[in-house]
């Protein structure tokens, strides 16, 4: 009697599908994938002739080794988490909004325009909330373009939202080189500095600003919406099964518009907070790709608002560490996005593997036929 034995060796161990990953495994996967990504990164660094321990050490030290390092990490956590929260809510509905970068820029443009040209006279208590609103609206409108094209014409939102990133960045460059250019800018492309009333208060002596509160509030509001309201339920149903959503009478186009508006709006607030909290003007390269990193952050956080804040903090550390490398060792800061991509790869692979487990086969189905398994 020969047994079917090709799958795994003589039936002692086999790979089985889990019905659901256990909580422990689910938490372990992101950690392990980060570790593996760092290992692979180390390999690449070795190939590039660098000592990975020294490089990682410098990054870690730069990001978390000093009060100022931690503060800078928090500074970058703010836009990263806001954009990632936005990306996350869209992903939850399987709307692949990868236009957070452009939406961030449009939020920044709207907020800057408001503070410089519409109501520069307003006191802080009025101006700042209005700027948050402007940032939200700017980002929301930019997000609504791919949202509407998808909802009404079924145009692939991945490509349109990405193309609009290029358009938004070029438009902001046009503004800072052209009509909004600061005449006293000494050749640096950028707008005039915002009035003091438009500056988000800082926790001196660091650059950590009130935008942090915006990010925490946004996470809290999203959490409540997703878990406690019927709108969150609708988003969940649409994300899991669009046909069932239609069958249940859920208005899918309207939800697509709403979600893309919120998604873009959150990225827009990220742009506003960069302008009002850090740059105090609209300038070139306002964002070092926060909108793209946000995609990884959102996925790594499993689209959960609170985890998003945590993961954003870690990734902000990666960015600060990368910058630090450039300053102290003359290495390209691009090591950060490279590591991010690698982490995402391992996460994707790990997520799938966590749904399987290796189990020992207890006994053969018919012991008398399977002496080999005893």
């Amino acid at each position, binding site marked *: 009697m020969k047994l079917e034995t090709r799958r795994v060796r003589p039936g002692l161990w086999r790979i089985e599908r889990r*019905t*659901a990953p256990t909580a422990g495994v689910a938490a372990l996967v992101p950690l392990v994938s980060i570790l593996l990504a760092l290992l692979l990164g180390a390999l690449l660094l070795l190939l590039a002739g660098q000592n990975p321990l020294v490089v990682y050490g410098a990054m870690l030290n730069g990001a978390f080794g000093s009060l100022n390092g931690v503060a800078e990490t928090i500074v970058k956590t703010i836009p990263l988490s806001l954009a990632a929260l936005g990306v996350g809510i869209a992903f939850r509905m399987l709307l692949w909004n990868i236009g957070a970068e452009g939406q961030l820029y449009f939020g920044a443009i709207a907020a800057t325009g408001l503070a410089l040209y519409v109501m520069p006279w307003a006191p802080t208590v009025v101006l700042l909330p209005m700027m948050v609103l402007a940032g939200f609206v700017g980002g929301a409108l930019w997000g609504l373009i791919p949202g509407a094209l998808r909802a009404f014409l079924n145009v692939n939102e991945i490509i349109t939202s990405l193309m609009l990133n290029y358009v938004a960045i070029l438009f902001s460059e046009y503004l800072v080189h052209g009509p909004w250019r600061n005449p006293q800018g000494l050749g640096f492309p950028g707008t005039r500095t915002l009035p003091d009333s438009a500056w988000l208060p800082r926790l001196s002596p660091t650059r950590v600003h009130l935008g942090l509160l915006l990010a925490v509030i946004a996470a809290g509001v999203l959490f409540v919406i997703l878990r406690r309201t*019927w709108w969150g*339920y609708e988003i969940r149903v649409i994300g*899991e*099964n669009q046909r069932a959503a239609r069958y*249940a*009478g859920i208005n899918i186009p309207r939800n697509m518009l709403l979600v893309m508006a919120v998604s873009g709006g959150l990225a827009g607030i990220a742009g506003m907070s960069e302008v009002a909290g850090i740059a105090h003007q609209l300038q070139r390269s306002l964002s070092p790709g926060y909108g793209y990193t946000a995609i990884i952050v959102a996925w790594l956080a499993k689209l959960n608002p609170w985890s998003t804040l945590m993961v954003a903090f870690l990734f902000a550390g990666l960015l600060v560490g990368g910058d630090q490398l450039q300053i102290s060792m003359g290495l390209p800061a691009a090591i950060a996005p490279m590591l991010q991509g690698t982490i995402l790869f391992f996460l994707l692979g790990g997520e799938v593997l966590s749904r399987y487990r290796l189990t020992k086969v207890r006994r053969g*189905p*018919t012991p008398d036929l399977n002496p080999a398994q005893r």
Partner: protein
Amino acid sequence: MNAVELTSVTKRFGSVVANDNVTFAAQVGEVHALLGENGAGKSTLMSVLAGLYRPDAGTIAVNGAVQHFRSPRDAIAQGIGMVYQHFMLVDSLTVAENAMLGQAGHGVRLHTAPVERELAELGQRYGLAVDPRARIWQLSVGEQQRVEILRLLYRGAKVLVFDEPTAVLTPQEAAGLIGTLRDMAADGLCIIFISHKLDEVLAVADRITVLRHGRTVTTVERRATNRHELARLMVGRELMGVVADQPQAVAGDAGVVNLEVRGLSAEGDKGVRALQGVELQVRSGEILGIAGVAGNGQRELAEVITGLRRATSGEVRIGGQDTTRCSPREIVAAGVAHIPEDRNGTGLIPSLDLQDNLILKHYRQQPLARGLFLNGAAIGNFADRLLSKYNVAAPSRAAKARLLSGGNQQKLLLARELSGQPRLIVAVHPTRGVDVGATEAIHHLLLAQRSRGAAVLLISEDLDELLALSDRIAVLYEGKVMDTVPARGADVGYLGLLMAGGAQSGAADHGRPMDTGGIINQDVAH
């Protein structure tokens, strides 16, 4: 001589044992039926034979030699082919191109002409005519099935496995297929016929192997058994029949018209006319059965009535109110329950928990929602109440829906749909793929709704089910209602003729001398 022999085959999916130590053998030149109810493990066993699944234990022998199938390629090479329940055809390709898929060693260039010729010849020989140049999507379901069979013959299959092949055919087509299968067996092929229908098994088979709960019960000679014995072997207890004949419509003609469909036309997904001038009326306390071969507009009819598809012309009135242009939500609010054809893809969200599935149609209503917020406690009570009222076997309301068996999933769906005391129930294949116990429960639920005064539109491909439950039966063919007849005393032969598009408008003439199963019985004495 045994063409194929499966010995002690065990196949598990996760913790579910689909086949437990099953032994099965079929001979050259016979039609061997594999009988068992839904979920008994018939399809799994044959997928093992076809190389699609690898058994966890056990052997496969072809013509006496043990074989190890790593993929369907190996099984095909040994002359084993399967006609799957869901046809394995590529819609956008032609018949000939489908036949050429995976054919080994014929060069790089695509030469379709010789294949087309050979397919035409084979079609002639077995009475399976179909245009080899047609694209699959242009063919009817019956023709697609012929393509599947022709492909196997073209590829030189000696053992042909048919998985519930009559489910998609009219009674006449089914009788024709049974004749073809007998011819093929007489030509020296080995035919394995999977079914859960006693009559057709008795009509087609030489020998019958019965499976129950994944195990072999026994193998019997056709000559040495009867319907009664087979039923007992299959279910493990006396079969009640599909719910004994029920008292006819409570209200009869006097009931209020809950659903009225007038001159309704609509397009299908491919842009072709799917419904043409459909006229229907369903009264309170009445079950109207819709019979027809798959793909004749049943799905579109259900979708238009429930607001999921736009009508191109005509009118739908529910409880007297014109709902033709209403959104799905408005139609739900008008008191319409919908049990869709595609349970896991439309009716339920398998990845969400039972509670979330149960509130799918009610989540914005008091007390489940208060303003924008969901009321967790009320939702929990609501879910628990429904789960116990409808006897859904589930560990808890927080379990994922995909973990339930087919029957329990369907009960979950019914629990949600019937909980709103609907005035109209649109049920599409409500018992497809569920076991006998759940089928009985579902039939009783539908009959109870009728007694309560609901109007039921029951769409099914199972004529027995329609005959047992309906008050009247309408036959849909190419999107048109061919005729509507009272279910009591309805003639299966006449219904079959209508399903095939014949006897159009001969409304009064349904006195052809064929009783239930008659056409099939004629073939029994082979």
